[in-house]
């Protein structure tokens, strides 16, 4: 199990003049799945990017194993902490195995050749993501779900104990979303990889998460186990939406059912009489 720790300490994060995340303090539980949720533009991706040291914090610190992350050589960080960005770029015509192999970069020296160990890591990553049979295919030809698996495989080939993912299920249909989250859960259970991700779908987050972090306008609103944290009051506060919370009939985790203005028994938009009449 991962013993590496990742923490954010009193961090203010932003772009140019604009501050997006205010005074954030957060400790990522090692070996668990943490999900950051919140409304659009609440700063969840910004927070993740700062944790992956793609963004510098203005004030405060991001600590990897207790050391400020920007003082550690980038390649050393890359052997501990991996990231799947929201929109990675795949070079034209690149083969799946070649792309996945690039995840080995931090483990190679200036002139060190490709080794059997690298081969093994790539094969294991392809196997874990169930795309071994696609190894020779061109990434361009794959479906969205397959392509996302390829990128996850690349991050796996990097063999980091901590893996950050920025909206790994965006652009995927619901079946592929569940597939990706199942895969991440496998990874977490089999290897104890610490996973931190940003998700849009609160219900999937509640089901697949050990530790939920809710943001509103760049500030931490609540954190903890989904069953403790997800309540109608929280949904109201974070998303500005009235909702009921029931037990997910499959997993028993909280299931958020939005109320909305229409289609509610107390305020039917179209009555049955109108329909037949």
């Amino acid at each position: 199990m991962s013993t590496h720790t990742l923490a954010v300490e009193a961090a203010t994060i932003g772009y140019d003049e604009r501050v997006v995340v205010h005074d954030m303090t957060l400790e990522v539980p090692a070996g668990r799945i943490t999900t950051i949720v919140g409304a659009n533009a609440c700063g969840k991706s910004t927070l993740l990017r700062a944790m992956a040291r793609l963004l510098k914090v203005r004030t405060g610190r991001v600590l990897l194993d207790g050391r400020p992350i920007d003082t550690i050589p980038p390649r050393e960080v890359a052997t501990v902490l991996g990231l799947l960005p929201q929109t990675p770029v795949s070079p034209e015509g690149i083969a799946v195995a070649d792309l996945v192999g690039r995840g080995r970069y931090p483990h190679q020296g200036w002139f060190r050749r490709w080794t059997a160990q690298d081969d093994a890591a790539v094969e294991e990553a392809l196997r874990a993501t169930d795309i071994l049979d696609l190894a020779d295919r061109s990434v361009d030809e794959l479906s969205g779900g397959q392509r996302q698996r390829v990128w996850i495989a690349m991050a796996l080939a990097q063999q980091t104990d901590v893996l950050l993912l920025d909206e790994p299920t965006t652009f995927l249909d619901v079946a592929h979303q569940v597939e990706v989250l199942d895969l991440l859960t496998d990874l977490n259970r089999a290897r104890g990889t610490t996973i931190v991700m940003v998700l849009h779908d609160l219900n999937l987050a509640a089901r697949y998460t050990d530790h939920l972090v809710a943001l509103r306008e760049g500030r931490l609103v609540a954190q903890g186990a989904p069953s403790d944290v997800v309540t109608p009051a929280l949904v109201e506060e974070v998303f500005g939406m009235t909702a009921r919370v029931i037990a997910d009939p499959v997993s028993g985790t909280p299931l958020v059912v939005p109320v909305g203005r229409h289609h509610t028994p107390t305020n039917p938009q179209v009555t049955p009489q109108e329909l037949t009449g």
Partner: protein
Amino acid sequence: MGVLVGILLVVAVVTLCVGERTYSPAQVLQVLLGERVPGATFNVETIRLPRMLTGLLVGLGFGMGGVVFQTMLRNPLASPDIIGVSAGSSAAAVVAITMFGLSGTALSLVAVVCGIAVAAAIYGLSWRGGVHGARLVLIGIAVGAMLDSVIAYAMTRAGVYDANEALRWLTGSLNSAFWPGVGPLAVAMAVLLPVLLALSRRLSALQLGDDTASALGVRPDRTRLALIVVAVAVVSVATATTGPVAFVAFLSGPIAHRLVRGTGSLLVPAALVGALLVLVGDLVGQHLLVARFPVGVVTGVLGAPYLLWLLARTNRSGGSL
């Protein structure tokens, strides 16, 4: 890739054999091993060998420099001969010849320095908190057009002798490739090309986007700057030796990509293709056509249709470069 090396060797030997008088490979080998063969020794050792070596080195440089740009900016149009880097060297050389009467090493130095300066200017002009491929290509083409007008102006003011000398800088040619030039060129390439090779793994990471590259432990901006400086130096040194051999930098990468398909870095295959293009282009220009043409004319005829095709294709697929 082994096949590429083989073909390149064969072409190199043919280059040494063929000419006004044609010698057998055995005779050429004797000359190379230091034996004196009447006639052949002078022709091969003094004329053809430096010409072949110059073509080979310059081709390696154009090929590798070009593919580094194209890969880094994720755009096949982003080759130094399209985006004005080579034009920078040419314009500086033409102005130096026609207005300041420079020649020799000083001239080459001016051409290299100005090539790098123009590249820096293009990079600076296209910087908006990062460099985007398409923007850099457009700005590079505009800068290239400006430099072309500088060249045209200098040429109209030049005397006949100077203009003739300056012409070499406009269409790449191996006609003035003799021994004294080979040494410095070989040293420059022996230093610069390995640096690019050492950076090639970072380049592969950079190809996946800045975020992924950072996640893999590569600093995107720093790596990009190092790659640009070295690649521009390579292309400028090559341009300073033979003039801009049209489209070699532009064509080598795409051709290599189609030849080796799929895995691994394109740097070495593209360099080999570049050398092959220059040597074959020179062979064709010297011996297969009714008149003798400089190599740049031949590669230009090859490259122009590909450029048209590429522009037509990118236009069809949504207009983004």
